[in-house]
């Protein structure tokens, strides 16, 4: 008997993870001989060995033991909730996305950054990234640059298997709705990302017309991008309705919604089309390559989403100086490259600084080679075996927007990892930032998304089901408690003692 009881206890213990909720860790910081920097970053979004290096460097600088307490979060909203619940101090450095930085800044949850000129960001960050942070994303009299330093950025597009999907189809968002690919594609289980696809479908005519104008050079690249931004950020009630219609139709045609399983499903061949973030695309392509499958990445021609994740310091951070050091450290070209090699997304750092990276054999752990690079650009050229001169069979990729004038490379493999990690000018021109929605808009769009994801029975069916359930519940209750009811009635009127069956 005891054994059984033990088993039951084990069963209960096994059930705990199912019901475990969000644990909130609140720890008062006590100043001492050690300095602790609390970092919150996305899952799998850093090469953790750089943290150790940071600890070593800072311990020397401060003459105290510096430790990094590294935390991860799954969504921007979770990070926001964590900070809200803690009502102030929880982390010293965080890494939310563009729209969440704006939301947090507006709600006074972030400190304004005061980066020293001559620091790594100043020296090495791409002018393109700086431009976007300083001019593109702004509200009231503030810009993104006041609160954040770009860590990684990327685009959204398709990862697809060209064996089952034509390259031509992957230039068009509408292919997701194509019955040809029924049950072969996934979209994100995240309203903001999927809203984008919905708009691209609902506003296809408008977007095509705009593209034609741009192709005919009647509008400039800047004007084109500005127009696209307007369309993709359209949240009028009418548009939301159209998007809901589009996405509801799409739901029937796709394999499913995902945020995590898609990159593995596309690599394993469970699906053929995965609507993905560029870094996940790189990951999926690497994974598939290991089993001999060639996947491609494509950013559809009518426009897509470009996003930025940035390091910020929360309002009540305790280690502001150390946090600034951390941000500076992350902007070092060597560190940026090491992180890029690990996560597959694109760092905002583009500068030149000589460094070398040791490569180890994954299985044996032995040092294979040490490669010296003169900077991020050089790393990219060597890693992707790019040519800096034109040649037969090579396609020109203009990266001057990111690395500076004259940085044009030539590659023989378009649409693969390199294209996903470093989109060319043409691609970034048609990629737009998705703004932050205010609370009212957010609620409308979330409701739209719930309607898309859920099933809505007609009113008569609901009433029928509810009445049915109530009747069943009533009958069962009546049977259950009939003894009691009878007892009271009889007992009160005639004084007859009714003995319940169980009591006998």
């Amino acid at each position, binding site marked *: 008997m005891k054994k059984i009881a033990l088993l039951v206890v084990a069963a209960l213990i096994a059930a705990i993870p*199912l019901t475990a909720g969000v644990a909130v860790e609140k720890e008062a910081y006590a100043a001492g001989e050690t300095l602790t920097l609390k970092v919150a970053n996305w899952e799998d979004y850093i090469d953790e060995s750089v943290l150790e290096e940071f600890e070593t460097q800072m311990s020397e600088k401060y003459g105290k033991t510096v430790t990094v307490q590294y935390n991860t979060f799954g969504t921007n909203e979770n990070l926001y*909730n964590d900070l809200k619940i803690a009502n102030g101090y929880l982390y010293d450095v965080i890494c939310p996305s563009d729209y969440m930085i704006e939301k947090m800044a507006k709600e006074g949850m972030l400190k304004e950054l005061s980066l020293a000129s001559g620091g790594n960001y100043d020296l090495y960050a791409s002018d393109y990234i700086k431009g976007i942070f300083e001019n593109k994303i702004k509200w009231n009299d503030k810009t993104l640059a006041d609160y954040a330093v770009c860590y990684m950025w990327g685009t959204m597009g398709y990862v697809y298997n060209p064996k089952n999907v034509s390259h031509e189809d992957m230039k068009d968002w509408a292919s997701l709705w194509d019955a040809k690919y029924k049950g072969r594609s996934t979209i994100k289980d*995240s309203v903001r990302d999927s809203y984008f696809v919905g708009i691209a479908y609902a506003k296809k005519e408008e977007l095509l017309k705009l593209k034609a104008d741009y192709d005919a050079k009647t509008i400039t690249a800047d004007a084109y991008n500005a127009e696209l931004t307007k369309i993709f950020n359209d949240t009028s009630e009418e548009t939301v309705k159209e998007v809901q219609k589009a996405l509801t139709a799409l739901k029937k045609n796709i394999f499913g919604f*995902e945020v995590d399983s898609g990159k593995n499903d596309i690599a394993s061949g469970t699906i053929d089309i995965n609507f993905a973030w560029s870094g996940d695309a790189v990951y999926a392509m690497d994974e598939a390559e290991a089993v001999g499958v060639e996947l491609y990445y494509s950013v559809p021609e009518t426009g897509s989403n470009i996003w930025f994740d940035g390091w910020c310091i929360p309002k009540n951070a305790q280690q502001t100086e150390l946090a600034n050091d951390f941000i500076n450290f992350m902007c070092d070209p060597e560190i940026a490259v090491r992180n890029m090699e690990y996560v597959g997304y694109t760092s905002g750092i583009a500068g030149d600084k000589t460094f070398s990276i040791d490569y180890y054999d994954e299985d044996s752990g032995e040092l294979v080679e040490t490669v010296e690079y003169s900077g991020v650009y050089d790393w990219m050229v060597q890693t992707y075996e790019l040519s800096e001169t034109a040649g037969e069979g090579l396609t020109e990729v203009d990266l001057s927007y990111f690395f500076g004038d004259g940085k044009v490379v030539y590659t023989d493999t378009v649409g693969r990892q390199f294209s996903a990690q470093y989109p060319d000018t043409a691609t970034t021109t048609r990629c737009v930032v998705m703004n932050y929605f205010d609370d009212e808009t*957010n609620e409308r769009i*979330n409701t739209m998304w719930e*309607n898309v994801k859920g099933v809505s029975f007609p009113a008569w069916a609901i009433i029928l089901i509810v009445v049915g359930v109530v009747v069943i*519940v009533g009958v069962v209750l009546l049977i259950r408690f009939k003894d009691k009811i009878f007892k009271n009635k009889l007992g009160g009127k005639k004084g007859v003692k009714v003995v319940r069956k169980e009591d006998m």
Partner: protein
Amino acid sequence: MASSVKAVARENYAGNEKKTFRALFKRSYLAIPYGLFLALFVVFPLFLIVYYAFTDKSGGFTFNNFVAFFSSSTYVSNLLISIGIACVTTAVCLLIAYPVAYILSRFKSARSYIFVLLFIAPMWINFVLRAYALREILNLFGLLGKTNFLNTVIGMVYDFLPFMILPIYTTLIKMDKSLEEASADLGGNGAVTFFKVTLPLSVPGIVSGAMMVFLPSMSCYVITDTFGNSKVPLIGKLIESMFGTNANWNMGSALAIVMLIIMFITMLLTGGFKGEKETTRGNAL
């Protein structure tokens, strides 16, 4: 451990009348950790949920969260689907678990616990791992992405089956075998004995098993995400998104309250509140 404590208490009782109070008092100390745990992680959060459910974003009292819930056909449909899935899962679990528990309880061998172990062991493997394995199996049969509701039920049954087997098994082995013998003596054949004696006596086990399957399967959205590709709406997922992306804790709490009420109704229906039969119920469960 527990028995030795009891022994000490008994000794005190017998040896010295004055110590009785102290002995009892000390024993009640043992409940303090549980009491603290309960207060901190059950009662306090419950109050928070009630608070949020009846307030709006600015903190003022309101019924609007509930009104919004019951006036949205999407939400109500979502709830009905969840209840439906939970009902089907419970029924399927019962159909599979009862024969298994019955056979297990009839093993005469002293090593019968090994067979019980065989059914319980899978629960010790990380659920995420098991879920991915099952996902691949479903994919192998070509079900993944096509039959989302069926996949969800398969996943739920796979996950919750042990919770149904165990309570039934415990009631069955605790059952007085002489009752069955008496039935046979009085001329009842196997079927009659089963339906007139064994089944009614195992009802408490069935009830606690059903409770343990029904309630979590209404909200275990990990399973619909993994096997139903997030295409099957579940009330648990809705609550999660209310606290996550929607940042609407008030609505999320209201949903949680609605679920709580449903839970109470279920308990009422199955007699979960009736204490007098505790001894025959699924034991530690």
